[in-house]
């Protein structure tokens, strides 16, 4: 943890779906090489917030955003979204490997999009990424098998390996464990802990224990607003806002 400067930040970010305003003036700072958890009840805008950070939000017809998102101090809206998404990777709620591709082809899909054709190099990177994603031991003998044949938790780690292969700086994780069993969940949490040394991670979760276990900083969102953001320990022990306290003590949500 050498770099705790602001890697990513939003300023007065607003996001709409059609006429519905899903994010209301959200300003948040995401420090580098740390895990920032975003918690809040369903529909509070936490997924929309991270989907703005790699400009996935605007791929939905009728969706738009206003305000600023800065990556290393530069506005992401002045960058090519295709290039941006190689710097800011994303893991989805439901594991979504490409079902027609083998395990290794899944991992190297992004690299092949970039035009890398050298088989040996591709295999090398795939092995590294599968190791980083803690999946190597389980799949090293069946790299040519379809990715869809893996269990849910393995598929999600495969998706993490796939995201790592394009060498991003930031990983956005949108409830990555919500479709997984507890054992797979704890594996992913361990993985998040390890990845933090090299990546900036934003973890959206509806599971407060997960936020408490896995993150350094926690943000609480409610009804499209950022209610509170601070060190995880502080947010869970001495929250500043009444709404945060009500939520983490289970009084609503």
């Amino acid at each position, binding site marked *: 943890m050498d770099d705790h400067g602001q890697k990513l930040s939003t300023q007065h970010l607003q996001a709409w779906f059609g006429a519905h305003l899903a994010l209301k003036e959200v300003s948040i700072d995401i420090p580098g090489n740390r895990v920032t958890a975003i918690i809040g009840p369903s529909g509070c805008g936490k997924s929309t917030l991270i989907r703005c950070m790699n400009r996935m939000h605007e791929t939905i*017809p009728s969706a738009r955003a206003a305000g600023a998102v800065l990556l290393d101090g530069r506005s992401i809206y002045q960058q090519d979204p295709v290039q941006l998404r*190689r710097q800011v990777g994303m893991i989805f709620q439901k594991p*979504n490997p490409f*079902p027609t591709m083998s395990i290794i082809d899944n991992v190297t899909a992004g690299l092949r999009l970039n035009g890398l054709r050298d088989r040996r190099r591709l295999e090398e990177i795939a092995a590294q990424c599968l190791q980083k994603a803690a999946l190597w031991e389980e799949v090293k003998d069946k790299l040519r098998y379809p990715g869809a044949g893996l269990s849910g938790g393995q598929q999600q780690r495969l998706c993490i390996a796939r995201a790592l292969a394009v060498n991003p700086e930031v990983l956005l994780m949108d409830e990555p464990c919500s479709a997984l069993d507890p054992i797979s969940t704890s594996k992913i949490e361990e993985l998040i802990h390890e990845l933090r040394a090299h990546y900036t991670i934003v973890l959206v979760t509806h599971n407060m224990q997960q936020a408490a276990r896995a993150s350094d900083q926690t943000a609480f969102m409610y009804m499209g607003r950022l209610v509170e953001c601070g060190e995880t320990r502080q947010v869970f022990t001495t929250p500043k806002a009444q709404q945060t306290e009500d939520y983490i003590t289970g009084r609503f949500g």
Partner: protein
Amino acid sequence: MSADRILKWVTASFAMIVVVLLCGIGIMLLVKSWPAIHTFTWHFPLTRLWDPVQGAFGALPFIYGTVVSSLLALMMALPLGLGIAIFLVELCPDRLKGTIAFLVELLAAIPSVIYGLWGIFFLVPWLRETIEPWCIEHLGVVPLFEGPPYGIGMCAAGLVLAIMILPIIASISRDVLETVPNDQREAALALGATRWEMIRTAVLPYGRSGLFGACFLGLGRALGETMAVTMVIGNRPEISTSLFHPAATMASVVANEFTEATGELYLSALFGIGLVLLSITFLVNLGARWLVLSIGRLPQGT
């Protein structure tokens, strides 16, 4: 008997009619073509000569005509239809979607004979006076483009068929692409894919069996199409490498010659051609259904 039981038996008997009809048509074809099968045996579909005056009946020119005109049509209609489907599903603004999809389906509603008329009075003269002379002059060394520009012929038939199977390929491909889950698109986009790369790496591979099915359904329609093809293909039972040469298909020869088929063997040979045509279209359609349905059986993430 209770009303529900009556309903069940009445509707079941209606459903049985389909089975009886299907079997009946097959058996009728088999019985009627028996003299030809008995006379020519397995040489029938492999013989090149069709000369009713001499009593020589070989189905090969028609099988060739049907297969080549249909494949020609597929080669033209597939990229177009797939392009239309990709536009409609991935790129088209919502307010235009309905209109374009409707217009595409309207193409399917145009009666075959109208395509035939359009083919004879517009397409064929255009081919004869503009396209074919140019091709013959510049590409004439290639056997595909040699010979005099008749206008009517394999090329005209392929073009008319392509337009006729375009709606079915476009609309089934569209249905197939719509079954591709959004998380597959997002997976590709999140890796830094452009729209086209997303379509190529995530959407088309996911739907590939269904897209093959769309091809086969288009092919099935092209194989059996009769009226428009009969009007523009020239009806000459010859096998020529040139696309500009008149030809004939299985459907066109049956439609053209059944009224003048005087001898028993002549008529029986036409039934034999019908039997071959039915078998081919039946197999192609069966394969197509199987492929289209198989898209729902893809392994899913949990």
